[in-house]
């Protein structure tokens, strides 16, 4: 397996606050790395380091073995980091095709080339298992799961080698959550994309994750492949190690 992104003792400080301290973990191509952690564990800071919003104060980030320093989100995108944020950055009143190509439209002369863009949208969405009957429909008519797929498909088409999914299932109903999980596993099968799957849901993490990293209070509590991590301990790790045990004891007392 080729390592795609490697964090090497990365730290990030905001004034006297230590947001992340000596974070090390590796993400591989064609694998899903589940990044788990509670609120305030430093997940958002980590995503922002990856997507070029912040740069690290200590340590280095290696992309395909080479150290990288992203100057801006645009810089990160052109280096192949695709981030799908929770709000998806979609326009509800605009069509599927217009959303897919927003900001990167294909024109023939001065006019938008809808034939080409519609075809690409259909083809790319079909790769992830969504049959778009009419790409000129406003995405207001799509389900939450389908919109998620649209955002993922768009990131991949525009060159994402590392795909960061920020809690893609958290705002969805049960059925749509499954739809998104299917989509993510289809992206994995493409084989050349490293997926960082950020989630609160230990069931989803267990189901999809090849590799796990647990963040707690700015530190990596544990990381490793499915075999290396004690899966029965997943929930405890997510809740922040032995803090849950402490609470249990307190409640008993």
């Amino acid at each position: 397996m080729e390592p795609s992104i490697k964090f090497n003792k990365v730290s990030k400080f905001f004034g006297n606050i230590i947001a992340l301290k000596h974070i090390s973990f590796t993400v591989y191509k064609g694998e899903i790395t589940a990044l788990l952690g509670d609120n305030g564990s430093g997940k958002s800071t980590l995503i922002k380091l990856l997507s070029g919003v912040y740069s690290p104060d200590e340590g280095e980030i290696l992309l395909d073995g080479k150290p990288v320093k992203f100057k801006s989100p645009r810089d990160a995108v052109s280096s192949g980091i695709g981030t799908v944020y929770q709000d998806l950055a979609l326009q509800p009143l605009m069509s599927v095709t217009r959303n897919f190509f927003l900001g990167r439209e294909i024109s023939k002369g001065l006019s938008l080339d809808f034939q080409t863009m519609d075809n690409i949208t259909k083809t790319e969405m079909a790769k992830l298992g969504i049959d778009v009957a009419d790409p000129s429909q406003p995405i207001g008519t799509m389900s939450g799961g389908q919109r998620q797929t649209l955002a993922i498909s768009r990131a991949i088409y525009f060159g994402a080698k590392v795909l960061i999914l920020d809690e893609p299932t958290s705002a969805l109903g049960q059925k749509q959550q499954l739809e998104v999980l299917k989509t993510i596993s289809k992206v994995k099968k493409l084989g050349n994309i490293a997926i960082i799957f950020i989630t609160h849901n230990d069931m989803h993490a267990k189901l999809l994750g090849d590799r796990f990293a647990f963040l707690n209070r700015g530190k990596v509590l544990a990381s490793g492949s499915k075999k290396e991590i004690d899966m029965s301990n997943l929930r405890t790790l997510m809740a922040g190690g032995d803090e849950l045990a402490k609470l249990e004891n307190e409640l008993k007392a």
Partner: protein
Amino acid sequence: MASRDERIREVGFFKNAISRPELGSVFGLIIIIITFMILTSLSGTFSAMWVRPIGIQAWVELAAFVGILAIGASLLMIAGEFDLSMGANVALAGHSFALLLLFGVPIELAILLTFIELAFLGFIIGTIVVRTGLPSFIVTLAFWFASRGLAVFLSQTFMNQSRLSVKSIIKPPPGGGEDPTLIDNIFAFDSAFGLPFDAEVYYFIILIIFIAYLLHRTQYGNWIYASGGDPVAARATGVPVANVKISLFMISTSLACLLGILTVMTSGASDPKAGDFRELHAIAAAVIGGCALTGGYGSVVGAAFGAFIFAIASRGINFVPFIDNNLFRVMLGLLILGSALLNQYLRDRVLKG
């Protein structure tokens, strides 16, 4: 999966029919035409309004004037912004143009300078809105006072009068029609070709076609919708939202400039009351035409229909003596409210999945 697709297609067909933003205004236009045809028939003025050229001119020319401003109003509303200063800018453009002519500036240069002045004004308004984050309603309200105030101040200061006549310089139609110059042919065509309508009618038709193409078929149009729909998402996908908005304010002031110059060219004078309240009529046309004040939704074609609805109701009432003129305002108010409600209902249908 297959059954789900069938459902989407079925709903999609229905939605396609009602999801056009201009749909409400098409119905509105048909209703208003039929209503006034019946009312004028009852008053015995049917041919005066619908057949005789002077009657047709009355409402077509008003529709064109309001419609040209409504193009700017609807573009801005689609991008989530607002321009209250359009009517005042018509007066500022007219006065600037007339003053330059009276100073002895050649007409071609005076037109160019006036367009530069108004485009720059749009740039200033847009930059203030984008940089300060103040609502454009407030910023353009300031210019609603300032533009007309500046126009009258300048003409009082330099010419000692608030109405500026330039009849001695530009020979407006019908007297100046014998030997039209190129400028006459561009800005006052009725003097050149003996066409029944003032120049703004032709500009209106050309602009509607051009802007509708721009809005629906080009990258810039896509960016306008995205800037109003969800500016944060638009920025995240690489749309230069601030520049799009500034450029639209420049289009809005330039359209006001065009009307200011056309008015002076065809009437031979610049009136300080030119374009008064027309910004509200243009916004009414845009709202009737399906534009949402919240942005991201609307069409210029709808705004054009809206301008015709306004103009037919506005001029038509003069042909119907048994209805009080003041009642027209009541009607217009109800029309705007009704259209806004209908359009909101249609828009919700699009959003619901």
